[in-house]
């Protein structure tokens, strides 16, 4: 029996709200964070909308997230988002940012996909122009995949395991799961976990070329992200970051920390790109195994799941995802759990999706509600055939949520699923 692991702090940078209060208000009221992007129209992208947080870049300096010296030369948008989410979570957990000594008991698992390519453009231009000497000292630390964890752990003096994970759209849930496992197994008392993503113009363009993005709602951006609907024509890229402070229960109780929820367990696996799984499509057998194993590790039966926070990106994979949940839980039709997709409001923020959606799941547990699926006025009949539409709410439902399952599935046929619970003494 491992240690119990609880959530004691949360922070979020989301397209529909920066900071927990704004984000909570947005998800309770079904507020979309998707905006038209004039630049994407100029660039002849098919999809010209995105979820971009209303992020005050200067606040990194003015609110003392980082010093003026560190701020000078910081170009990585993903790092800025991650710093704010992580440090807000830390403060929310009731702890000071400043420390003289390393905090040996606390580690960090934070994920992202790639560095800010837009910022790297300047690097490429200088090198090609034979001016590599002018790049300065700040490029490598922001180009490296571990940039975000380095900035976070350096600012807060984290001295336990510091790991950067990357598993495409499963990154966020996987980061939380890894942090949970380190605490459960006794390697750390506290882990700052989460993920960040800035979908820059170049990454966005590459997705656009794959024809997997929503392209028919450029005039009505708030309608563009439509998971599970018949008009779902692809996902809407989003950016942001979510972060959680996880702690050993006894350690948290000792310092009188506020406890939001408990992480009961989870699973991370891969479909091996076999049995129908490919680089871009999930092997359903792998997905079902991941969910089943998560419940088993958490000691939770399928009937105990009150809420599914789906991956549900608004592509043609939505139907199969619902089918996979039905298979894994042995529950369909009227018996299917309430299910929602935060992506209907904020789009798909790739590596950051799992952590932002986990923050949303915990807020639903803490405040007793199920957030709406917006833009779900025209359900895909193939999904309506599988589960009762009442289980896919279009309006917020006030309801006690004891246990939520949060899963994400990513390119490379990777899966991660977390089981989250109300904290019960």
């Amino acid at each position, binding site marked *: 029996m491992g240690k119990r692991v609880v959530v004691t702090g949360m922070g979020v940078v989301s397209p529909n709200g920066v900071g927990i209060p704004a984000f909570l208000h947005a998800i309770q009221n079904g507020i979309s964070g998707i905006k038209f992007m004039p630049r994407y129209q100029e660039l002849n992208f098919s999809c010209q909308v995105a979820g971009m947080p209303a992020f005050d870049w200067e606040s990194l300096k003015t609110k003392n997230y980082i*010093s*003026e*010296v560190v701020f*000078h*030369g910081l170009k990585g948008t993903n790092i800025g988002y991650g710093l704010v989410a992580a440090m807000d979570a830390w403060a929310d957990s009731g702890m000071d940012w400043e420390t003289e000594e390393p905090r040996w008991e606390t580690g960090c698992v934070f994920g992202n996909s790639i560095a800010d390519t837009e910022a790297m453009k300047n690097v490429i231009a200088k090198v090609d122009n034979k001016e590599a*000497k*002018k790049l*300065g*000292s*700040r490029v490598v630390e922001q180009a490296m995949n571990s940039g975000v964890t380095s900035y976070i752990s350096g600012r807060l003096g984290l001295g336990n395991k510091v790991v950067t994970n990357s598993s495409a759209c499963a990154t966020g849930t996987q980061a939380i799961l890894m942090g949970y496992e380190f605490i459960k197994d006794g390697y750390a008392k506290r882990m700052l976990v989460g993920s960040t993503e800035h979908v820059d113009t170049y990454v966005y363009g590459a997705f656009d070329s794959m024809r997997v993005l929503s392209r028919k709602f450029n005039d009505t951006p708030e309608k563009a992200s439509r998971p599970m609907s018949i008009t779902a024509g692809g996902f809407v890229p989003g950016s942001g970051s979510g972060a959680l402070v996880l702690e050993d229960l006894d350690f948290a109780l000792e310092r009188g920390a506020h406890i939001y929820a408990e992480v009961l367990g989870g699973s991370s696996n891969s479909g091996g790109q076999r049995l129908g799984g490919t680089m871009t499509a999930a092997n359903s057998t792998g997905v079902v195994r991941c969910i089943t194993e998560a419940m088993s590790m958490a000691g939770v039966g399928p009937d105990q799941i009150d809420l599914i926070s789906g991956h549900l990106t608004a592509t043609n994979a939505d139907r199969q995802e619902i089918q996979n949940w039905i298979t894994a839980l042995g529950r369909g039709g009227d018996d299917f759990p309430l299910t929602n997709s935060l992506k209907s409001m904020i789009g798909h923020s790739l590596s950051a999706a799992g952590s932002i959606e986990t923050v949303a799941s915990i807020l639903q547990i803490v405040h007793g509600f199920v957030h709406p699926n917006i833009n779900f006025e025209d359900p895909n009949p193939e999904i309506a055939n599988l589960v009762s539409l009442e289980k896919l709410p279009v309006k917020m439902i006030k309801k006690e949520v004891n246990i939520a399952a949060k899963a994400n599935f990513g390119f490379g046929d990777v899966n991660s699923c977390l089981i989250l619970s109300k904290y019960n003494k």
Partner: protein
Amino acid sequence: MTRTEILDELKKVIAPYTTNKEMLASINEQTDLIKDLKINSANLVDIIIDAEAKYDIEIDYDSADKMVNVGTCIDVISEKLNQKA
């Protein structure tokens, strides 16, 4: 440029790289960039790059190695300015 003029300009070049603004205001030729101004050693490269741009000079590796305090910075900058003139 006189040494005093270079020093005044150098303050502006160094400013973004130190949080010790009080010390910066009162620097003299003996002020050590790392020990006194608490500048991250990696940032010395950035100061050199900024100085090159500001004075339109090139600071080679050997000269850069000498730039550890304000006085030696001024030495190198004035030497390069003179070479240019």
